[in-house]
Each structure stands twice: as structure tokens, then as C-alpha cells.
């Protein structure tokens, strides 16, 4: 099975790299966001770059959610999965290939983002690279698996696109990667505590901004890992090879199982945790640093 999974992963990486749509959404768009963030939000201030890079890294990793799960639905609709079903490969290998290929496709973008921040925008720190590596790795795998669970509980491309857009919008606008959580009203801030994307973004921002240690990102890593395992297993059980096999309404509820770790984590944070304070604190740090740092145009004068 390892050999088959690896073969499928390599094939899917090749196909992704031959797809202009994939290259645009997974590589060009995050880089576009990076330039936009640093130029418009950071105003070229190098001290703001680590914080903004944390958000951009989270955005790139979360992109794995779209990634190859849509491709899997398309394969099913076009009857391509039927041909693979004739070979001695199981749903596990097919799903794992989505996660593995997404993982390898995320890293070049992440590395490029780091290099641009360091050498083009003069980012003063590398943050805690090991913590970043850990979060990017587990994040890419978990968000891929969440995409797979959507692919498993939807019956066609149209349905998949609608559900993906809804979830993606929540991730995008409530996790702090586009609008800082510190700017949001109190009740919205509480809602963000139930989203996996918030933990990933906060973890990556912390790892970049104040070189958060392993122990500081452990909580989010464990929650993401549990979600990964649950999402993978649910997707494997609900996997369908045939385009005409439709999933029943009740079976779709299994998708919620993947969010259980974050529902628990959100509940805990809401009553006893301190994530919201940390988010607000990080935002204050970056504001103070930005205010204290000389503006790049001042240096040139």
C-alpha cells in the first residue's frame, strides 16, 4: 500500500503542476496576498513582516483545504476513479495521496514566502522555524483531510464548490488571516475560537512574532492531529468510487466529527483559556513595534 500511495501521490503532484488553475490559486495567489499585505498593511515596515507572514503562511496552508479534494470529486464525476477502482488500490491510498501531494505542494510556496520576506522585505527574524515547520506540516495535512471530508459528503462538483466556499469564507474572514481578530466585536471573537483556522493562524503568528516554543504550539498541534485522524477515517469510510453512488443525508453528519477537537478546544478556551488575550496581546506587540520602528522611507532621507 505504501508503494501505491507514493505512486498516486507523485501522479497527483504532476497533474497539479500541469494545472494552471492549481498554480494560480495555490502558488500565485498566496504570493500576491503576501505582497499586498506587506505593502498595504505593513506599509513596507520590516517589523510588521513577521506577523503578516504568519497570517500568509496560515493562508497558504489552509489553501490545502481546496487543494486536491476538488480534484477527487472531479475524478469521481468523470468516471476516472472507476478506472482506479479496477486496480488493487483502496480508498485509503487514494485519500492519503491527496494529503501527501498537498503537503509537498504547499512547501515550495511556504519557502518562497519566507525567502521573499527575508530578502525582499528585510524581515528581521526567522521566528521559530521548527515550530513553523511543525505547524505547516500538521496544518497542511489536516486542512487537506478536511477538504477530503467535504469531498466525501458531497455528491457533485457544484455541491462541493458551494460547501467549500462557505467553509473557506469562515476560515478566511474569521481566523484573523485577513481581518485581525483584535478588530472583531467580542461575540465574533468568541466564535473564532471554534475554528481550526484561528488556531493555525495564531500559532503561526506566534511562531513568527515571538518565536513561540514547541510547548506553546503543542495544544494546537494535538488538536490538528486529532482532527486529521478523524477526518481521514471518516473520509475513508464514506469514500465512493462511482459517480452514481450518492451519499445519504444522515451520513453527511459524520463530517462534523472532524470538528469535535475544535469544538472542545473552543469550549475550553471560552471558559478557561487565554487565547483571545494572547491574540490581542500579539496585535498590540506588532502595533508597538511598528510605531517604534523607523519608517523605511525615513532611512533613505
Amino acid at each position, binding site marked *: 500500500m505504501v*508503494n*501505491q500511495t507514493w505512486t498516486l501521490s507523485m501522479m497527483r503532484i504532476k*497533474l497539479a503542476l500541469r494545472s494552471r488553475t492549481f498554480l494560480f490559486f495555490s502558488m500565485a495567489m498566496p504570493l500576491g496576498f503576501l505582497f499586498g499585505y506587506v505593502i498595504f498593511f505593513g506599509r513596507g515596515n520590516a517589523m510588521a513582516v513577521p506577523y503578516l507572514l504568519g497570517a500568509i503562511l496560515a493562508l497558504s496552508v489552509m489553501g490545502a483545504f481546496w487543494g486536491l479534494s476538488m480534484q477527487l470529486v472531479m475524478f469521481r464525476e468523470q468516471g*476516472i476513479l472507476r*478506472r482506479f477502482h479496477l486496480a488493487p488500490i483502496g480508498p485509503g491510498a487514494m485519500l492519503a495521496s491527496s494529503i501527501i501531494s498537498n503537503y509537498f505542494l504547499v512547501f515550495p510556496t511556504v519557502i518562497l514566502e519566507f525567502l521573499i520576506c527575508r530578502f525582499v522585505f528585510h524581515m528581521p527574524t526567522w521566528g521559530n522555524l521548527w515550530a513553523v515547520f511543525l505547524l505547516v506540516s500538521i496544518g497542511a495535512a489536516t486542512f487537506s483531510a478536511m477538504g477530503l471530508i467535504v469531498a466525501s459528503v458531497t455528491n457533485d462538483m457544484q455541491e462541493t464548490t458551494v460547501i467549500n466556499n462557505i467553509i473557506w469564507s469562515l476560515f478566511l474572514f474569521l481566523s484573523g488571516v485577513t481581518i485581525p481578530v483584535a478588530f472583531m466585536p467580542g461575540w465574533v471573537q468568541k466564535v473564532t475560537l471554534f475554528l481550526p483556522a484561528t488556531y493555525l493562524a495564531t500559532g503561526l503568528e506566534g511562531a513568527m512574532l515571538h518565536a513561540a516554543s514547541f510547548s506553546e504550539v503543542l495544544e494546537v498541534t494535538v488538536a490538528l492531529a486529532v482532527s486529521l485522524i478523524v477526518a481521514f477515517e471518516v473520509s475513508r469510510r464514506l469514500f465512493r468510487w462511482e459517480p452514481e453512488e450518492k451519499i445519504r443525508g444522515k451520513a453527511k453528519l459524520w463530517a462534523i466529527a472532524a470538528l469535535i477537537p475544535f469544538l472542545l478546544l473552543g469550549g475550553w478556551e471560552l471558559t478557561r483559556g487565554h487565547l483571545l488575550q494572547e491574540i490581542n496581546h500579539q496585535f498590540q506587540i506588532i502595533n508597538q513595534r511598528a510605531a517604534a520602528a523607523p519608517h523605511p522611507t525615513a532611512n533613505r532621507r
Partner: protein
Amino acid sequence: MTEPVIQVEGLYKNYGAVEALRGVSFEVHEGELFGLLGPNGAGKTTTIEILEGLRTQDRGSVRVCGLDPQKNPVEMKHVVGAALQSTSLPDKMRVEETLEMFAHFYRDHRDPKELLKRFQLEEKRNAFYNQLSGGQKQRLALALALVNNPRMIFLDEPTAGLDPQVRREIYDTLEELKKEKKTILLTTHYIEEAERLCDRVAVVDYGRVMALGTPRELKQRSAGTTRIEVRLSQPSADGALNHLDGVTDCRKLEETYLLHSSKPTQTIVALVKHLEAQGVELQGLEMFSPSLEDVFLELTGRRLRE
């Protein structure tokens, strides 16, 4: 006697209210090219897909190479090759890398380069799947069916929709596979395909096996009669054509009268005299030597391609 490579017994399958299979039973022996012959919707594809492990039956038992496709799917797929009625692959996959990828899925496999050569795809080795013609796609599907050097090969309508030239090339390939003593199960609705290639044929309609035997045995069932198809300017009087010299059976199918005759020359002479006497004009007349089409017609009362 060795165990059959395929054993199918009392196979039933419903799609909602539609009864796709109603007790299909047959066996296929080692080295045999066995055909399931029938019109669209007869249950051929459902049968072959149950054997391939793509679908489950509602009732009945199936063994392929001694294995149950539902209980031992992985083990079975290692020894079985298959080409679907319509094979789809990712548009941006190249021909050679597709063969190489599928070869990696199996314990035992053939050299993809040898398959490229055999199926005349060498020039297209670097072409994307969406750049291939229909015939080239079908050749690739056949090459994929052989990539694991299978003991048993399933081919679902391998020549459907292809031009005569490509069809002949595929016939040649299947004849080569026959010489290699491969066991093949083929579905088709082409009479000439079944007659030319198959060692034995099961005539299938409405989810049932209507007749089973070698093409020769089946044709003998039509009593060795010649089929004469006649179109007239106006309907013939009831039963009149039945009494013509040599006619053993007469039935009307839409606007055509189908006469089966043991003495075709005498039948035609008698027919012409009869029509002249009745003042009816002969608009068309065709003669056919006994074929599986006749067997099918006799068994089901309709043509294969209706």
C-alpha cells in the same frame, strides 16, 4: 477437470424498480474467449462489473479465479485485467506515465514499453490523454487491461463506437491474446464480433441468459435456415407468406417480413408469384445466411440493435 476461471450462479441485481439481472448463470474455462451477446440494457455491463468487483449483486454467487470479488477484491484484482465500456483518465496524464503508474500498482507487471509497442502507441508515449483519438484511447485502455499480465481479462464492449479500421486492429489483438491462451470475457452487441472471436457465447436479454453455446451450436438452433427479409408496398394477408414453399417461420418486424426458409430459391420464386397474383409490389428483398442475429431474433423476437 480443472475449476472454471469464472463461475456465475443465479445472479440477480435490481436498480430500484428495474430488474437488471434475473438469474444469470454461466461458467468460463481457462483459455476460453467467452462472449456475452445482447442489446443495450440486456444486463451485460452489470454482469461484467459484478465480476470485476465494481458492483455488488443482490443475490447469487460469483467466483473469479477461485476468488469472491467482494470478499477478496485486492487479491482478485492482482490477477484480473479489465477495460471498461468507457475508460476515463485524467486529461493531463501522458500515455507512457499512465502505463508506468498502473504497472506500479501490481505485484507482477509487464514492461510498459512493450505494451506501447504492441498497441502502436509508441509515437504517442508523451501525448496527454486528452490529445488522443477515440481509437488511441481504447488501445490505451486495452494496454492498461494487460499491464498486470492478468490470468483473466474482462472487456466491456471493447470496439463500441470505433471505426472499422480500429475495430479490425482490436480483433487482431484479441486473436493474439487467444493464441496466448488468455481467458477473456467479452461483452458485445456486434454479431460479427461474437462470431469471429468467441469460443462460446451467452445470448443475454432482459437480464437472462437466453441461450449458451459455441456460435456454431447456436446457429444450428436456427435450423440452418436462410433469413429472407422482404418489404412490400402493402401488408400481406395474414399467414399467406407462412405457406410459401420452404418457409419454416415468418414474422413481421415493423415494416419488414422475416421469412426463414430451408429452400431459399423455391421460396423466392413462390414469393414473386404470390405477390404478382395479389398485385403487391416488392419494395426490397435481402437474403442472409444463418447467423447469431437469427438465433437472437428467434429467442427474443427482436433484433440486437433495436
